[in-house]
C-alpha cells in the first residue's frame, strides 16, 4: 500500500520530472533532492497547491559534503539503536542511504529545507545540491518570511549566496570575519579575534 510519503513523492515526480534528482522516504518522512534551477518553482507549488499546502518553513540549513564518507564518522550508513537490551536485540541492520548525487565539487554543498503542512500535518525535506564554483540558490524569503534569517545564517556559515535575498549579510559572525567557519576546509584552529591576540 503506498504511504502518504510515497504519494507525495509520486506527485512531485509527475509534476516536476525535469527537476527531481532523487527521492526516498525514511520512517514516514519523504526527502526529495531537486535541481537548484527548479527550487523556486517547486517551492511555490508546494506552498500554494492545496494538496500539499506546506505553509510552514520549519528549518533551513546548509551542509558541506567535502569529505563525506571518507571517515567512519561520516560514512553514509545509519544504524538504528534498538530499544531492547542487547541480548534480545536482533543483529543491527545497516540502513544505507544515498545522497542521490555524486560527491564532487559540482555537488559539494547542500541546502536543506524542512517544510510542515498544518493542514495535512505532514513534513517534507527538500535538498538542493550546490556547486563549489558557484554556490548560490534562489532565496525563499519572499515565500516564507522565516527563510530570511536562516538564509543569512547559511550564508554566514557556508558561504552559499541566496539570490534575491533582501538583506544578505552575516548574522552570527562579525562583519570583519573572513571566510565561512563551517566549511570543511576552514582551519579548525583558526581564530579571528576583534581584540586581543590570535590564540
Amino acid at each position: 500500500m503506498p504511504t502518504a510519503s510515497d504519494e507525495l513523492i509520486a506527485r512531485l515526480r509527475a509534476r516536476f520530472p525535469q527537476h527531481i534528482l532523487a527521492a526516498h522516504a525514511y520512517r514516514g518522512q519523504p526527502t526529495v533532492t531537486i535541481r537548484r534551477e527548479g527550487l523556486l518553482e517547486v517551492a511555490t507549488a508546494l506552498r500554494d497547491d492545496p494538496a500539499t499546502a506546506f505553509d510552514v518553513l520549519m528549518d533551513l540549513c546548509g551542509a558541506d559534503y567535502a569529505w563525506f564518507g571518507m571517515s567512519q564518522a561520516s560514512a553514509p550508513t545509519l544504524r538504528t539503536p534498538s530499544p531492547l537490551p542487547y541480548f534480545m536485540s536482533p543483529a543491527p541492520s545497516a540502513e544505507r542511504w544515498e545522497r542521490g548525487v555524486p560527491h564532487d565539487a559540482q555537488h559539494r554543498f547542500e541546502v536543506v529545507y524542512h517544510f510542515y503542512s498544518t493542514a495535512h500535518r505532514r513534513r517534507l525535506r527538500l535538498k538542493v545540491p550546490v556547486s563549489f564554483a558557484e554556490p548560490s540558490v534562489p532565496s525563499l524569503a519572499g515565500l516564507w518570511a522565516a527563510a530570511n534569517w536562516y538564509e543569512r545564517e547559511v550564508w554566514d556559515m557556508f558561504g552559499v549566496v541566496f539570490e534575491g535575498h533582501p538583506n544578505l549579510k552575516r548574522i552570527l559572525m562579525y562583519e570583519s570575519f573572513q571566510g565561512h567557519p563551517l566549511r570543511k576546509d576552514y582551519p579548525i584552529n583558526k581564530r579571528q579575534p576583534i581584540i586581543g591576540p590570535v590564540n
Partner: protein
Amino acid sequence: MSVDAAKLNWMTTRLDAALGWARKFSIFQYPFVTACCGMEYMATATSHYDMDRFGAGFPRFSPRQADVLFVVGTISHKLAPMLRRVYDQMTEPKWVVAFGVCTCTGGFYDNYATVQGIDTVMPVDVYIPGCPPRPENVLDGLIKLQEKIAQGELAR
C-alpha cells in the same frame, strides 16, 4: 616642616589594612552572565549558599557602581569588545573573576568563535574552574578574592 617617615609608613600601612578589611566585605559585583554558568551563579547567589555572608550579596548592573567583575559564561570574539568596554568603565580599584572553564581557558569550545580565556582581553584576579563550578567552588574563589582584596592586590 619635617616629616617623621617611620610614623607615616606605619600610618599608611594601617590605613591600607583598614581599607582592605572594609573593601573585602563590601564587594559590589557586576555579573556579566552569558551562558549556562549563570544558573550556577544564581544558585550561589540565592539563600541556600548565600553570597551575602561574604558581603557580595548586592549585584550592581552598572559597571560604574561595581568593583568586582564576574565574567560568567562563554565569551565569543564578537562579544569580547563589549566585555572589555564594561571592564574599562569600572572605577578603580577593580577586580575580575573568571567564572567557569569557558572564561578561564575557552573550555571545550576550542573553535573559531570563542575567546580562549578572557585573560587574553583583560587582567584576571581569580580563576574558578569547573563546568559549571559547584557553589562551594565559587565560594572558595570568593574567599580567595577577599584575601586578595584585603591585601590590596590588583591584577594589572
